[in-house]
């Protein structure tokens, strides 16, 4: 029988006692990023997240599309891969749906996620497969050396807009909320603890979880995110989540299950707030829905063997 192994991603545990997962084990090739790139901090935070999660190493999958940030899987010693530009989400959905025992992480940049892969982002969110997607947004095409990206602000001077970009940029949080993703958070590559918390929460979410991390490209868009870096004179404003303690100050806190409140947050003027915008724990994953379909269908066939099923089908063609 070919019924997939099933156990929710969050509850699977190693069969035998094994040494805890450490950064030492998780480090692979030395990153090829430019010195000072924000992506180094994202990678360091991800090691910490994996240490906290302590999944069996062979059950972790790290995948990516194309771009600077998409080199990520080469630097993490887990099963993984480097797919084509913009299509890593449907690829990862295949991994997750076919192998519910795995923990699937996808990394990519703003070009991968919001431009060439924009349609896949919307449809993956709609389907809600169990996996975590980290978008390392630097608001520029870095690997191809400074072209306008879908999140480049108006006025940004690039090789494709030397006079300053004038197309309306994508608002990632607004796009994600509208897409129906069931966990949406925003973080900043200069805030390691915050990144670790957001990615950790995302990994534990039962469904399609997305974390957008502003990660500066020091080579082609230096200072892009200074307005949210306190040591550069900006302010890093986090989202206070509701504690439901009935206190007066709690009324002003954000309820992440409130889609409209999340949208209002997404419409805050730049640089906006950081934290969990939206979380929906009630929508079933595609993994669960497909499994339910399998269980129901197999019950109808009285759990017939593959040979019995196919023989019956051919008998009907006689």
């Amino acid at each position, binding site marked *: 029988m070919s019924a997939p192994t099933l156990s929710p991603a969050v509850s699977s545990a190693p069969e035998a006692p094994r040494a805890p997962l450490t950064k030492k084990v998780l480090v692979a090739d030395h990153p090829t990023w430019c010195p000072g790139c924000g992506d180094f901090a994202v990678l360091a935070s991800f090691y910490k997240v994996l240490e906290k999660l302590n999944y069996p190493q062979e059950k972790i999958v790290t995948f990516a599309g194309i771009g600077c940030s998409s080199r990520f899987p080469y630097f993490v010693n887990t099963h993984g891969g480097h797919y084509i530009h913009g299509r*890593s989400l449907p690829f990862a959905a295949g991994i997750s749906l076919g*192998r519910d025992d795995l923990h699937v992480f996808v990394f990519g940049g703003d070009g991968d996620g919001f431009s060439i892969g924009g349609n896949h982002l919307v449809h993956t969110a709609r389907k809600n497969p169990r996996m975590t997607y980290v978008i390392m947004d630097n608001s520029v095409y870095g690997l191809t050396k400074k072209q306008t990206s879908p999140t480049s602000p108006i006025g940004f001077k690039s090789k494709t807009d030397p006079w300053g970009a004038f197309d309306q940029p994508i608002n990632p949080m607004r796009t994600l909320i509208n897409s129906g993703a069931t966990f949406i958070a925003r973080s900043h590559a200069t805030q390691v603890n915050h990144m670790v918390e957001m990615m950790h929460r995302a990994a534990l979410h039962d469904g399609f979880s997305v974390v957008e991390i502003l990660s500066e490209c020091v080579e082609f868009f230096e200072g892009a995110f200074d307005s949210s870096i306190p040591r550069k004179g900006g302010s890093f404003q986090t989202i206070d989540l509701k504690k439901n303690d009935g206190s007066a100050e709690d009324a002003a806190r954000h309820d992440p299950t409130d889609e409209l409140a999340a949208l209002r947050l997404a419409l805050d003027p730049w640089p906006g707030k950081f934290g969990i915008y939206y979380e929906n724990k009630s929508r079933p994953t595609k993994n669960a829905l*497909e499994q339910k379909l399998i269980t129901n269908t197999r019950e109808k066939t009285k759990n017939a063997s593959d040979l019995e099923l196919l023989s019956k089908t051919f008998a009907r*063609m006689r």
Partner: protein
Amino acid sequence: MVSPIPPSSASATARSNAPLFTIPDVVIRLAGNSQDGIQAVGGFLARLAGRSAQEVMTYMTIPSTISGGPSIFQVRIGSGEILSAGDRADVLVAFYQHSYESHRSSLRPGGVLLYDSDHVTPNPDDKEITAVGIPMTSATVEAVGGSSKEKGKNIYVLGLLARMFDLDVPKLSQLIKERFGGKNEDIVRNALLAFDAGYAYPAENLAHILFRLETPTPTVGGRPQITTDGNTALTYGLIAAGVRHGAGYPITPWSSIMETLRTELPKYGGIFVQCEDEIAAASTALGFSYGGNLSITGSSGPGLSLKMEALGWATMAELPLIVVNVQRGGPSTGMPTNIEQSDLLQAIYGSHGDCPRVVLAPKNVEDCFYIAIEACRIAREFSTPVIILTDQALATRIEAFDEPDLPKLMIEQKPDLSPRDASYKPYPLDQVQRHAPPGSVIGSGKYPTVTGLEHDEYGHPTASPAMHTKMTIKRREKIKSVAATFPAPELFGDQSGDVLLIGWGCTYGPIREALGRLRGAGATVGHIQIRHIHPLDGGLEEIFARYRHILVVEINDEGLYGYGQLATLLRSRYCNPAISSITKTDGLTYKVSEIVERVAIKLGLADTTVGMRKQSLLASALTAQK
């Protein structure tokens, strides 16, 4: 050709409605509109043939509109080997005036026209055929109970044909019950009423056109026959081969494969995902394969183009994948409901870069089942994408064939998560490596990255000129080595001589029939249907050397340089100037006579082909009694 067997005079006088002649095969063309259910009648006839151990082949056209439009279904039934749906019809059933006018020319001289006298007025001066008018519409309405709806006149016609050809009524009734059994009782009852009314049509009006189909000698201990179309056969071939995962996007004529997989795979514990586009479908399928579940994606022409970048990645990353391409008329949206074999070069060379992969082409409906199994074997064994090039004609036509021996053929597939030892390399230069899916512990502690970047043996990106050369050679040699697993190509007809006919895909039947006629006319002719397109079957060079001409029969254009797509490939591979092309692009399957005439012209045999005109036994039977 076999002569008709005249009835003995004694029995002819004893029963006035006894069949006049026993005939070995018949071609019936039903012409109406797409909502008339003529496909259903054709389907019943085909399945009856299958259950009677007869051979059958069908041919249909459907308009690419949502509803309405002229449509035909042609069925050929016989006791001998049926290789094509027949060039011309022995019987034409015309529901409307336009059906009559468009398809009169498809009827052979001496053939029978059955027309609905409520809608059709045939040319009274047409003495070349026997025209029989029957009020099909009003008789059906009368039989079913005056709802004034014409629904059921297809079944009425089935009854008529059952009488005309002395078909097995209990078996047909059973088929009707099975077909409509799931619906409410009234539908089954009405269908049977319509059938009985057609069957009871006064025999004296049909007396001069009653026939009996020869009963084939039952094969002792043979397997039961099944009757199905190519897309269905292919789908269940994949399931037999252990495919439990896949992804697709709707496009004609591929869609029926994905619909069946979507509803069937959950029964087997599997998943089929309908994706947002063709690229996502290829990607999701590759994700399944990466997880250790050999999976399938598919499409038709334009969709295959969209998948090409992902297929290039699959070659580079060395992952197994099955890709079905149901070819249709192109380029662009082209002729979505017509046949064309114009995706061959796209299938082989469509991706960017040097991107070798396996391409197979089934030769008939039965072969759709077996080639799916072969494709899965190759994909697993060589960790490579395999494209199955089928086409609109194979996808939709119905044939009867022996039920596959499932206990012997079925393959169980599970992700191979066995621990890999410390020497494991994802991309060794000197051997074919099977992918280690996530979940497999890697003994060295170094987990592999599958990648589309050029890489070394461990999957690390490299821009080393030497490594790119070595890896390109490795990927090429891997696909070349697949050919060693192919059986020798099957050579029909003369083993050497004037001409070798080469075909691929749905042209198998018409070429085989043409072979018979050309040999009958004195030419020495052989035929090979190439099922393994890339890499090619072994041994072809030596076979080619035995013939003066090698003619490649294809349904595509001769291109800028005068050769069809397979002919181009064969000429480039074998540098044999004897290879030339017979091509066409009318969106239709080859008629046997088209091939015979084109070959005769190529060989300068035009004179000897006179008299090769198909001598239908039905036609001669009709001539004989006049």
